[in-house]
């Protein structure tokens, strides 16, 4: 087990996804590729925490399908089948370059992490410079609060608080969440924060939002704050990762289209194809 010290606050990285990645986008690797790009490790060690789903085999298989062979180690830690874990939890958690938390029940996720002392270990890992990422419950958990549907109807609940503000996810896919979050922010039950549609991720350097990225054309995000009892909403325009399908974000740039026409023409002239 490597003993690592704390890194500067700006070198602590969290990437929070509103929905997406291998469990939700089996045919779209853009967000997961982006996750891998966040570590400078040449042989990254990647740990998946499927806790929020109850450690479903489906999530674990999807994780392996996406990451196996792409990292030095891609392993998962099941807190329901711990017998399979050969090392102490501390050693497993503190010896990673990236820790990826899956979606599911935010309430169960935090309660089970806490029961095993994993919450404290994850804070330590973040302080040591391990990239923390996740989607849905696995994204909201890093903030001061989020909106969970763990008991059925959506309700606000506190998170680990590594990041300031609150987060709500699936703003497009599960529309009943957003109004509950907005009401909680307006009432002051939750601090202001971000609402993310599926496919959108927020990259934080320390506690500062650095980038807003997306795997899907047209997916959006907003920042919402309560000012004097009123909600102030700002739309955020995510950067589309990869090339994206044509027509993304209201159409490809004219200059790019022009360049592509030139390329096609040249190939046609040179090889007689296309």
């Amino acid at each position, binding site marked *: 087990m490597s003993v690592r010290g704390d890194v500067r606050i700006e070198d602590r990285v969290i990437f929070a996804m509103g929905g997406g990645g291998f469990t939700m986008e089996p045919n779209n690797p853009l967000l997961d590729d982006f996750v891998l790009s966040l570590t400078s490790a040449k042989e990254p060690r990647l740990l998946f925490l499927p806790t929020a789903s109850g450690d479903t085999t489906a999530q674990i298989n999807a994780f392996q399908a996406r990451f196996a062979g792409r990292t030095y180690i891609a392993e998962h830690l099941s807190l329901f089948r711990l017998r399979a874990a050969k090392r102490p939890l501390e050693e497993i958690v503190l010896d990673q370059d990236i820790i990826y938390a899956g979606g599911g029940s935010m309430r169960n996720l935090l309660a*089970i*992490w806490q029961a095993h002392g994993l919450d404290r270990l994850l804070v330590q890992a973040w302080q040591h410079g391990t990239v923390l990422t996740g989607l849905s419950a696995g994204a909201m958990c890093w903030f001061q609060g989020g909106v969970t549907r763990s008991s059925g109807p959506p309700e606000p609940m506190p998170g680990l608080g590594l990041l300031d503000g609150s987060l709500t996810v699936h703003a497009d896919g599960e529309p009943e969440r957003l109004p509950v979050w907005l009401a909680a922010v307006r009432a002051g039950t939750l601090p202001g924060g971000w609402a993310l549609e599926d496919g959108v991720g927020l990259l934080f350097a320390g506690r500062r939002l650095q980038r807003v990225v997306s795997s899907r054309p047209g997916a959006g995000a907003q920042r919402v704050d309560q000012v004097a009892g009123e909600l102030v909403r700002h739309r955020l325009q995510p950067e589309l990762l990869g090339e994206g399908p044509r027509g993304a974000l209201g159409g490809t740039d004219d200059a790019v289209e022009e360049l592509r026409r030139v390329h096609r023409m040249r190939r046609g002239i040179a090889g007689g194809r296309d």
Partner: protein
Amino acid sequence: MERDSSLLDDYVLSLTDSPRPRVCFLPTASGDADHYVVRFYRRFSPGCEASHVSLFRRDQGTGGVEDDLATHLLAQDLIYVGGGNVVSMLGAWRAHGLDDILRKAWRKGVVLCGPSAGSLCWFEEALSAFHGAPRSVAGLGLLPYSNCVHYDAEPERRTEYHRFVGDGMRAGFAAEDGVALHFRRTRLQRVVSSRHDGRAYRVEPTDGGVVETPLKVSHLGADPLPAVTSKCEEPAPEPSSASRRPHRRGARRPAGAQVSERRPVTPEPLPA
């Protein structure tokens, strides 16, 4: 829910005094594993009003019971807690208020039972050896004892349990796989087993050591059951453990099970 025997399930159902008992399954300790839920329904739905509560699938409408958990659980004749990780289970229960609901159910007279994690959870202290070094886990504390399960499955269980009890863990009960401890209120009523050679023990600290006393075990397939005395006395210990068979080995067996019931006969202060 032993794969090869329904004796323990039949026994616990017999405690409900109902021709068609309402039985609710809590598969929390397994992460609400689908195959476990299916196994439960296969075993219990023919003769019971069977239901389950999943704490992981409630947002998807596949959580079994969707309405008020407390109302549903308090209306059961039997609550069956599945095996798995006791620490994860207790954490999730507390987050959903299930710990309080189960205490209420017990006071109301609902029979509580379960194997492995589903046994450990009812006790004040439990020896969990699910991962890494064994450790003491605080259960719901309905039964003011400690508990150790799978006593025969792994040789180090016995050594560790003795060590913990010697070091201050409260006195308690150890059960081998296939053996169930039946408590009424907080008194041990009977020890029953689905296997002819199933064993259970009372483990207590003594001056400078630990004493392990074998308990009389009724084999459900053969022995007539001893009468349950109204005074709730503990079963007489067997005189000697000298004839104890060697540890059985082989395929993993279903866990030692535990049955706890409390009838609202005479009000009695509960353990804290």
